[in-house]
């Protein structure tokens, strides 16, 4: 059974069609990268999966159950799907540990001792040991993004959504974050990733989807999609990326 199945998802912003009947299925332990130009709908699609954006038509299912099903209630869905944003979105008035512990303690009622241990373990794993008491503004972008990853993973989600997580980082800091994502893949995390890092997408993805105008124009494994794109628009997009030196 598919971990996530997206069926005919359609979304309008006003009269502007941003997702035009998208179908996509993601298997357990699979990593799917969404690529495409700005405004192609890839971030919106990602945000539909955890209901940050409400879509107008279609269904999205997690383990075969619609995400609108009362079974997920208000909180269960967010416990099982984590998301990390381009701009980190850590809470600036809370230190690292408070950022990580907020949702598990207040929303999911995990005992604070348990979640604290989990937080220390993950911070250590991500090379952020000793930063427990630091505030976001005291850290570099790469460090903040790693904390954001820990925050998203603290509730043991089944699925991780990554929304251009390296787009705001200095080139030097991107590597560290990408390595963590690769490690997560080897541990079997199911991930949907919106990215402009084509090299990374080629390395880490099981499937790559090229979005244009709210539809998935082309979908294939990274080898085929990057070396032998079928659709002329995909070829044009990749050509530009190569010219910009990003692949």
């Amino acid at each position, binding site marked *: 059974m598919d971990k996530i199945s997206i069926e005919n998802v359609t979304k309008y912003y006003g009269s502007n069609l941003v997702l035009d009947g998208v179908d996509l299925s993601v298997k357990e332990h699979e990593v799917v990268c969404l690529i495409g130009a700005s405004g192609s709908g890839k971030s919106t699609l990602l*945000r539909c999966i*955890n209901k*940050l954006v409400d879509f107008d038509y279609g269904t999205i299912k997690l383990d075969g159950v619609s995400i609108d099903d009362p079974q997920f209630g*208000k*909180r269960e*869905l*967010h*416990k099982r799907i*984590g*998301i990390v*944003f381009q*701009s980190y*979105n*850590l*809470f*600036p*008035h809370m230190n690292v540990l408070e950022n990580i512990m*907020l*949702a598990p303690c*207040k*929303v*999911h009622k995990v005992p604070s001792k348990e979640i604290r241990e989990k937080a220390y373990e993950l911070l250590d794993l991500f090379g952020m040991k000793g*930063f427990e008491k*630091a505030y976001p*503004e*005291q*850290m*570099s972008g*790469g*460090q903040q993004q790693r904390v954001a990853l820990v*925050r998203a993973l603290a509730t043991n989600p089944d699925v991780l959504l990554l929304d251009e997580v390296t787009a705001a980082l200095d080139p*030097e*800091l991107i590597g*560290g974050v990408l390595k963590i994502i690769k490690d997560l893949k080897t541990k079997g995390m199911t991930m949907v990733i919106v990215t402009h890092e084509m090299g990374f997408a080629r390395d880490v993805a099981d499937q790559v989807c090229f979005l244009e105008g709210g539809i998935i124009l082309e979908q294939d494994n990274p080898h085929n999609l990057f070396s032998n794109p079928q659709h002329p628009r995909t070829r044009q997009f990749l050509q530009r990326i190569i010219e910009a030196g990003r692949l």
Partner: protein
Amino acid sequence: MIKGDSAPQGVRETPPPARKTLTIRERVIPVLISVISVVVVFGFAAYFITRAEQWPRIKLQFFNLNAIKEAFPSVARGFLVNMRVWIISLGAIAIWALILAIFRSLNGPWFAPLRVFTVVYIDLFRGLPSLLLVLLFGFGVPALHIPGLPKTSLFWGATAMVLSYSAYAAEVYRSGMEAVHDGQRAAAKALGLSQWQTLRHAIVPQAVRNVLPALLNLAVALQKDVALLSVIGVRDAVREAQIYTAKTFNYSSLIAAALLFLMATIPLARFTDYVAKKDRQRRLQRTV
């Protein structure tokens, strides 16, 4: 210590070269010009004022040291009433205005009555003169003789100030809440926080920090506006000064009250400037 990712700690043997040193002349002359020009301008003003024909009368009526000394104890006692009302109102306003701002920010059809209430409340109390409210509450409500409610004009006058100032403070809070970046709401929602938890843990703490200078500004305004209670017979500094004036036909007691108010408001205004400066630095740091 927290430093860049794995960047080497900056090892700097020698301090960076100091900025070009200024000669004594370059340093002293601007200061000298400032001092001399200030002394000349204010000296002239003082000279002409004190030479004026009416000056002795002005001095006798307003700056009479003996009268100030005589009136001071009762004016100071009244001033303590002002400050007590100020502190208590300040606390009540901070809380009530925040509640109003939260009411106004709640989404969902069930909260519509709260939203409508807040909009009407703010329109009403921001649109009415504080003086009118003080008169209405301070004289009007005690006259109703409703059992169980306090009857002192002090209580009802202070209530009027709280109601009036809360309307302004609620709008200040609201602007602070709206200034919190949308990404913060998205993050809170993605973590599963409820609307209330999002406000409580993510939005309000940041909003309060954002608007602290503006709130302190209101606190300065309130500090002097509590003198409005004198019109309903509360024996505050202004009232005590008026009593003295009525007895002696000398206005120096009002000057005594004025000095007391300035002693309270000027330090608070400086503190507000300081907080605002800190706040600006904090914001700058974040954007770098």
